[in-house]
């Protein structure tokens, strides 16, 4: 047990930036966190409002506890899905694995520590997902101290079983794919199939819940046991039901009984995880960083192709592309969002397809003469660009190689171009994917399609420049795995947030103006064009100075 604690502490210290921060930058970080909280405030408030409304409705028929059930079920599902990614990263593709394997540690000790690290990150997710719900429920039901005590215990314990399940799943997968020379590719394909499965699952849920548009209907579903998500979650994680009962009856002895039963179920989960870990982990993780070369001489055409002369900035761009394509973590975070996210936006559209009247209304809206349709499309593109991590991790991705790059005789403008290119191209690609989907569902005229692309291109260019600006200010260069560079990094969140705010401002601005299609498109193009030029000037002027300051 001691070894587990020791390892956990070291791993957490190693993965947080706080240890290596410069003096005087704490207040900067604090300010950034505060800014983000303010940015997410509307989301949190609407979440709180939603839960409160649900509570009032359900309380009239004495079924308010269904909210807890739904919340815990939702959080279990989310942690299970996110857990798969965390486990792959933290258990397998983190560089410390190679240093830990030679130490006299049992698999369960390494796993125990890594499990706690993953759990720590899951708590952050949980805090956002279910923290407000637990508090709102407590306040609304005038719950006693015991409720909050139980809530804290449950908050800490609820993620354990889903995370243990996803760990076991990943360990099985890694154990049986740790074969042959092409294991990286094998795993990537497995990963993409996994993402496909998750998307399919989400589609299925959306489809089942498509009739659910307002709170009343949702309440109906919860009561009649028709909510697919809830049913599924309690089937996969039967222990969740015990957690809900413990909370609901926290004032009685039976509540304590349920809590103990839940803790016992969790303990069983831990034992199962430990049992599976001892048998599966080492066999899956050993030789993970090995990659075999062919050791064949490159000649003739192949040599000419690889050694072809290019302008420096273009060569740098191609290098960026290759690294994104060949690194699974970068591909998942920089490449796939551009292609998959438009589909995620599409799924609700499919959901409401049954509701003809709503779709018709939407159609009428989009085909009208107003400029709002083009603003909505631009906002969509901006949000998509904000979800893409390519530019906001452009410097971070280089890691320690960035310092070698600093010794290159490459003018800053060329460096900037090379860094902005991949992200911008990917964002433009997602504009077209979004357009294709929109054209499929909505009667979009060629004029609207043309104008939508016309205004969206400067929109996404601005997002990419902004992303690069953030990364230039606070790159995370000392990471132990590529996944850590893009995932355990706060910068993409800023880009996401900025995208959301910019999209909202755009839509609000156009709605309050109420101009018609072509004038709105022209004004948006001009505004975003000017913003781009201004930001570009700032980057070119101040960029070299900022880059000089990155010394560690």
């Amino acid at each position, binding site marked *: 047990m001691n070894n587990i604690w020791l390892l956990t502490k070291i791993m957490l210290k190693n993965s947080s930036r706080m240890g290596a921060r*410069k*003096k005087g930058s704490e207040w900067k970080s604090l300010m950034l966190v505060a800014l983000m909280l303010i940015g997410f405030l509307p989301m949190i408030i609407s979440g709180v409002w939603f839960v409160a409304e649900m509570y009032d409705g359900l309380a009239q028929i004495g079924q308010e506890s269904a909210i807890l059930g739904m919340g815990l079920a939702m959080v279990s599902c989310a942690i299970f899905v996110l857990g798969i990614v965390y486990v792959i990263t933290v258990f397998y593709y983190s560089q410390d694995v190679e240093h830990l394997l030679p130490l006299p540690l049992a698999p369960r000790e390494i796993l125990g520590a890594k499990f706690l690290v993953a759990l720590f990150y899951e708590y952050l997710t949980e805090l956002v997902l279910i923290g407000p719900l637990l508090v709102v429920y407590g306040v609304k039901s005038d719950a006693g101290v015991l409720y909050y005590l139980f809530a804290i215990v449950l908050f800490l314990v609820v993620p354990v079983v889903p995370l243990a399940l996803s760990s076991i799943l990943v360990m099985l997968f890694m154990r049986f794919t740790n074969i042959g020379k092409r294991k990286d590719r094998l795993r990537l394909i497995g990963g993409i199939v996994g993402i496909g499965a998750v998307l399919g699952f989400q589609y299925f849920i959306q489809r089942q819940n498509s009739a659910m548009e307002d709170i009343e209907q949702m309440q109906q579903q919860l009561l009649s046991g028709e909510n697919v998500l809830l049913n599924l979650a309690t089937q996969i994680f039967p222990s969740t039901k015990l957690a809900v009962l413990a909370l609901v009856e926290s004032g009685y002895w039976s509540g304590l009984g349920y809590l103990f039963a839940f803790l016992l179920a969790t303990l069983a989960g831990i034992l199962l995880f430990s049992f599976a870990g001892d048998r599966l982990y080492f066999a899956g993780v050993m030789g993970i*960083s090995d*990659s*075999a*070369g*062919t*050791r*064949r*001489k*490159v000649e003739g055409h*192949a*040599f000419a192709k*690889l*050694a*072809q*002369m*290019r*302008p*420096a900035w*273009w*060569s*740098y761009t*191609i*290098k960026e592309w*290759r*690294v994104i394509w*060949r*690194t699974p973590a970068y591909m998942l975070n920089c490449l796939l969002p551009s292609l998959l996210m438009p589909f995620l936006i599409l799924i609700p559209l499919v959901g409401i397809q049954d509701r003809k009247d709503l779709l018709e209304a939407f159609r009428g809206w989009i085909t009208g003469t107003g400029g709002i349709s083009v603003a909505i499309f631009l906002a969509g593109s901006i949000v998509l660009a904000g979800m893409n991590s390519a530019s906001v991790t452009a410097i971070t991705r280089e890691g*320690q*190689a960035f*310092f*070698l790059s*600093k*010794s*290159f*005789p*490459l*003018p800053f403008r060329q460096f900037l171009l090379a860094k902005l290119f991949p992200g911008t191209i990917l964002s433009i690609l997602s504009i077209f994917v979004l357009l294709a989907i929109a054209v499929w569902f909505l009667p979009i005229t060629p004029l609207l399609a043309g104008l939508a692309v016309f205004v969206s291109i400067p929109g996404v260019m601005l997002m990419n420049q902004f992303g690069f600006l953030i990364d230039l200010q606070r790159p995370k260069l000392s990471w132990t795995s590529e996944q850590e560079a893009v995932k355990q990094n706060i910068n993409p969140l800023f880009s996401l947030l900025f995208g959301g705010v910019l999209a909202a401002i755009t839509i609000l601005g156009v709605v309050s103006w109420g101009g018609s299609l072509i004038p709105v498109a022209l004004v948006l193009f001009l505004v975003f064009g000017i913003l781009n030029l201004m930001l570009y000037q700032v980057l070119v002027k101040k960029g070299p100075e900022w880059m*000089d300051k990155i*010394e560690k």
Partner: protein
Amino acid sequence: MIELNGVSKSYNGIRRAVDNLDLTIPDGEIFGFLGPNGAGKTTTIKMITGIIKPDAGQIRINGTDIAADPIKAKQRFGYVPDSPDLFLRLKGLEYVSFMADIYGVEQELRNSRIETLAKRFDMLDALGDTIQSYSHGMRQKIVIMGVLVHHPEVWILDEPLTGLDPKSSFTLKEMMREHADSGRTVFFSTHVLEVAEKLCDRVAIINKGKILFCGTFPQMQEHFQSHESLESLFLELTKHE
């Protein structure tokens, strides 16, 4: 030629990693930069190569001030960093070619140079594989090839011999000698004192950011009135610091 005048660097405003350094490395010389761990070697090299900015002082590469005209100064040197675990997702040939692009090496010239370098370092069969699949020594060799492909006038090498097999180590030392003999500059840091003693025309010993000695090995023996090896002198010099 590399010139450092009054160069200082401190971290967090307290610890002086490099303290008022004056150093001139003339053309035609192999210059060894020695010192215990954490003495300030890598910090000095990073300042010379423009990776970090000195707090004070001036650095010139072949007469060009790196602060005033960084692009021109950077074109003059080639730099091998202390860790070769870089650009692991690229193939060897892609990396060397990328470096050739950065320094604008013409097609014909790069083809023949890559060929020659690969032969000398025994890397012909590995160029098509990703650097990730290389051993430590092979990674070191590909980084060195990436630097030498643009024929820099000044070589700046941070621990270049670490991990090289005897043959490659011999080849690199041979190339360093050739380069210095053709009237250009080789500046390298090392912990291997035997190598420094045999290879370097001059050495500087740095500790706690200050130069303790700079000169030829015979000068050092004369200075300390001793006929002991460089190792003994080095240990003596850095003992009480």
